[in-house]
């Protein structure tokens, strides 16, 4: 495993992705220090100004202002904080629930497996967008609610994929050997089965982070996301969509921010998949 991780760190895809994510993460962590303005400060005397280098731009507002005269650059930086928080916590939560259920289903099989399998089926017959909207109605807006909604929708992604992996791993002789040595079921799962599924899990988590960023943007875009007082890229897009002719920049910038973040997570996932998955690494595809 350590060997495989070292191999990943030599992959250009993983390195480029990590570099991009470090920049975004830096903005998210030190938003208060980097942002030139408070993201909520309104200046109604200069609304919808273009970026500073365009005609009519204001040097005080490097990337311009939105329809309430708030600084776009500061909102982008604070938006990165919202996006990264959601990406980290939502994918972690979905991973924990999905992984635990997948290991229980795949390891024990039988009735437990059947029950968890049917639960996943029912869950997945809801289109994810519809389910998350309905959940947001029930939960109300807010950062923690968005995270919870994503966890409740996306645990099935982990559960379904990992279960089949656990099924394969459980059939290996060394798992039977562990049982013969007197390991309890819990010890066997934690020490023997889980490490074998971990490479797949790491890949899934980075892909899930990309999905979480998108879902957060979508929910904020329709006005059911983190709430009006917290800057979010989806909100900025919804605001800019209304004034698209006056200020096309305001639409472009948050779209770029989402695009770059999502591409970085996907690139990371793809790079990890190629280097961590032993079977893929061997065929060289």
């Amino acid at each position, binding site marked *: 495993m350590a060997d495989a991780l070292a191999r990943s760190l030599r992959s250009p895809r993983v390195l480029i992705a990590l570099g991009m994510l470090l920049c975004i993460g830096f903005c998210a962590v030190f938003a208060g220090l980097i942002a030139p303005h408070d993201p909520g400060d309104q200046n109604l005397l200069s609304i919808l100004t273009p970026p500073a280098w365009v005609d009519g731009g204001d040097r005080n507002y490097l990337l311009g202002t939105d329809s309430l005269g708030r600084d776009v650059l500061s909102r982008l930086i604070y938006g990165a904080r919202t996006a990264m928080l959601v990406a980290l916590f939502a994918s972690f939560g979905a991973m924990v629930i999905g992984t635990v259920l997948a290991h229980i289903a795949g390891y024990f099989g039988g009735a437990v497996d059947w029950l968890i399998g049917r639960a996943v089926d*029912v869950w997945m*017959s*809801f289109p*994810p*967008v519809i389910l998350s909207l*309905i959940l947001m*109605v029930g939960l109300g807006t807010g950062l923690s609610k968005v995270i919870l909604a994503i966890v409740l929708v996306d645990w099935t992604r982990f559960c379904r994929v990992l279960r089949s992996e656990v099924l394969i791993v459980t059939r290996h002789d060394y798992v039977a050997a562990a049982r013969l040595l007197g390991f309890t079921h819990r010890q066997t799962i934690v020490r023997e089965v889980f490490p074998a599924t971990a490479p797949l899990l790491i890949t899934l988590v980075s892909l899930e982070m990309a999905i979480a960023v998108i879902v957060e943007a979508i929910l904020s875009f329709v006005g059911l996301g983190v709430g009006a007082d917290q800057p979010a890229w989806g909100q900025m897009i919804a605001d800019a969509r209304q004034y698209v002719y006056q200020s096309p920049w305001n*639409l472009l910038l948050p779209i770029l921010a989402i695009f770059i973040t999502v*591409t970085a997570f996907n690139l990371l996932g793809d790079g990890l998949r190629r280097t961590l998955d032993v079977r893929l690494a061997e065929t060289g595809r």
Partner: protein
Amino acid sequence: MIALLLTLIVRRLLSAVPILLIVSALLFCVLRILPVDPAAMSLPPNATIEEIEAQRRAMGLDQPLPQQYAIWLRGALHGDFGRSIALRRDAGELVAQTLPATIQLAACAMAIAAILGLGGGLLLFHLRGTVLEPLADLASIVLLSIPEFLWGLILLFVFGVLLQWLPFTGQVAPGLPLPHVTGFLLLDSLLVGRFDVFLSACRHLVLPALALGLAFSPTIMRVLRSSLFDVYLEDYIVQARLRGLSEGRILLGHAFKNASLPTLTLAGVQFGILFSGTLLVEVIYSYPGMGNLMVDAVRNADLPLIQAIGLTYCVVVLLINTAVDSLYVVLNPKLRVR
């Protein structure tokens, strides 16, 4: 053959019934935990407490939850989904009015996804072993990571705002009449002979349908490519080559046919996801379909309408999956033997 197909469809539909029941019950429970009172919301703000109590009884809200669900289910089976609280109209009627526009969008998007996906898949396969392969591979991964939400915004920005080639709001230009025969605008405008409306509707449909199509084509592309790789390992390809057929005829006449089967299964699953993807595209382009209705209902906490639309999405997705499964049996001779 037809009898076999019919039994298959019936069996699939029957197996979907318990899933639908559980889904509708879940939907019902999630929405009942809400801290909103549908009875108070459906009355004017100056209603007295007695009036609200009477309304609660009339709506069956004083009954225990399972009974409430039974009442709602009985109504839903008769096509009665209750009245929308915000719009004060029959929820089922509202869904029936907006569903055709959404189906029209989804069908156009699927056609685009299929054309781009199959064409791109053949191209990707054709480029195998050339210097362009890693480049095309990377491009397909970048494409794969752009969801319909981003495509919708990117296309709106480039073709709507920057180049101003295409309209990006609504389903026809303002001022044009909306003929109503079947509910499908493209069809209706042709039926009443208004070609100007038809053209305008087409122009308004391009960006939303393209956004959805682009989001779903890369998956089809990649599956077609990898199943072509599998097919090319088969003996009949070697045999065709020994018979002296051209590479083009081998690819299109022999390999493509067999590789398209797994692609079709996947495309079916994709079509189910694509159908729910219309929601976001509709909101971005202010397209008057079921998705926009859903978002409005969600913003207003309009429970009866949310239930009706949520269930409709699930039913349509299940129906699409059933149709694709049946099509698969029609096209795959191996599955016809029992």
